[in-house]
């Protein structure tokens, strides 16, 4: 896991090409959107709303895939499954992992 890059270089190159001048805006949007999602995930976990947890993790997973944050998207997928399985203790553990990986991804983006 540690060996896996936080961001997929090829996907990033493609994104730059597509977004052109708006690439920066996209990155900022993604980061802001993701932070909001993380807050929401903590909130629904506290409320033990596993259904909302799964849905938010699913949606988060989608944008991670598009942004080339492959490892983060995999962690989101695991969180989504835990939500669907209503396994809240696993979800709490996985959300920590998601939080940590997002910090790495964010710092990679900020260095671009």
């Amino acid at each position, binding site marked *: 896991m540690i060996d896996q890059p936080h961001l997929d270089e090829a*996907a990033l190159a*493609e*994104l730059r090409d*597509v*977004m*052109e001048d*708006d690439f920066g*805006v*996209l990155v900022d*949007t*993604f980061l802001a*959107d993701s932070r909001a999602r993380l807050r929401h995930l903590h909130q629904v976990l506290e409320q033990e709303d596993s259904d909302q947890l799964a*849905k938010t993790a*699913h*949606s988060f*997973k*989608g*944008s991670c*895939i*598009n*942004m*080339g944050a492959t490892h983060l998207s995999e962690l989101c997928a695991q969180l989504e499954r835990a939500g669907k399985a209503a396994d809240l203790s696993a979800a709490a553990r996985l959300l920590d992992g998601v939080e940590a990986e997002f910090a790495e991804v964010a710092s990679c983006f900020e260095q671009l």
Partner: protein
Amino acid sequence: MSGEFSPSQTLNSFSGSAEPSRLRILVAEDNKPDRMILCALLQKLGHEVFEVFDGTAAVDQFHEVDPDIVLLDAMMPELDGLSAARQIKSMAGERLVPVIFLTALTDPKELARCLEAGGDDFLIKPFNRVILDAKLNALDRMRRLHQALAEQVDQVRQKNEQMLAEQKTARRVFDNIAHTGSLDSPNIRYHASPMSVFNGDVLFAATRPGGGSLVFLGDFTGHGLPAAIGAMPVAEIFYGMVGQGFGAAAILREINAKLRRILPVGMFCCGAMLETDSRQGLVRAWNGGLPDAWLLRGSGERVAIPSRNLPLGVQNAENFSTSMVVFQVTPGDHVLLMTDGFPESANEQGELLGESGVRQVLAGLSSPSDAFDALMHRVREFTGQPEAADDLTLCCVAIPELEQARPSARKPPDAEPIGPADWQCVYEIRERTLSEFNPLPLLLHICMEVPGLRSRSGEVYTLLSELYNNALEHGVLALSSDWKSSPRGFALYYEERQRRLSDTDGHFIRFSLSHESRDPGGRLRVICEDSGAGFDFAEHSARASKTRSIPGSSYAGRGLELLRRMATHFHVHGEGNRVEIVYDWQPGREDDD
């Protein structure tokens, strides 16, 4: 005809799909970064993009945006993608608006659910420009194909509606010319589809001015409008000429000449003509190309009347034969005419009923009056169809009692205040013309110019035709009506008549007509002279009155009886070859008396 219909053009525009079309695309994606990427991708591909956040907004905006294609995130808050897709599809109605689901789903079952909800395809994240472009192009082709097909279906439906409307109009025009005539007479039964004229079948019947009737059944080659067009002049000729007193042969000759002039090569009209004269107890039949017609006698005897002539519109006037088969008939005899749709009716196995099938039905009849129902029943039973087919026409004419055959004035007397009322004329036909020309229509026409006399056209025709037939058959041709009292003699009589008509050298028939007006009505005087040796009227009349009870057996006597009854004065001069009648008439309906 208006409106171009070229399906190939609309469909061809597809093959050139190399040029990318600019599509109006509605994107509904709640995930902001994903939406940004997708919209950027679509704009780069040259499309016009309208973005909304969720399914409810997509449904709300659908009519306003009027998109060509919709991209929907499968999982959205508020209204999820699947429900939104269903609503959008129903709003689009008959139009195909492809829906592509955007999804991070990887579970095959969930992907399948997207398509079941009415999605046309899905796009799995991460979005890929090449795949997106390929999918949009594929769906755009599908969308345009659907649209073109829908337009074509629409056009076909419109064309069809237009055609049916045109057929109805044409049918009305046709009906005005080819009114039912006397097809509704109690002695005629027929089956013909209401739109049969568009299958090329025509059936006409009319009462002759002097009594008796003419029935014509025709079957044009081909179907639809070309077949129907030929029917118009045939109807006009038939009804026009019958009304003027022409007989079957003259009408057939005219129809043949007309059709030969107007129909393209390869198109013609199979037909049969039936002329009944119940006063004489005669039926004359002509069959050109139709299946066997049948004479069904009350005695149970069946006589086929096969086609012995080429169809109408094929031969030139010189070669066209109007020779008719003549039968002696009695009331209760029936004659059947049919188009080839009848023997050519097929059952489910594709087997044809055939003329043998017709014979079988006729052989099983207990009475000729059952023939029509039995044949119709058989064809329905054979084809398994409750309704007989459109291209099948069957007509059954019963030989009526003498009383029924009396001339009737169907038309109210025309208002004709102006016309020659006081005149005289002499009309003589000589030599070969005697064998080739029937002067009755012309003479009738002259008389009908007298104001008011048209209301008596049947009687005038009868007077003229009795005088003429006596002069021709007993005067010029010196035939003895005694022969007609036996079936063998009957045939002989008509053979001999035909033979002697070929040698009329030195003979003539001369009509001297004069008319003077009286108030009301007038007096018509007719003198008919012929070049024959003469005829013993007194003896003939005496004999005729003894045998009158047998119809047709003493026609000449019967004819003279009629003349005596209708005329005010009747006088035979000299050797019997100069007959004079005076006919006083008053205007009114013929059946007044």
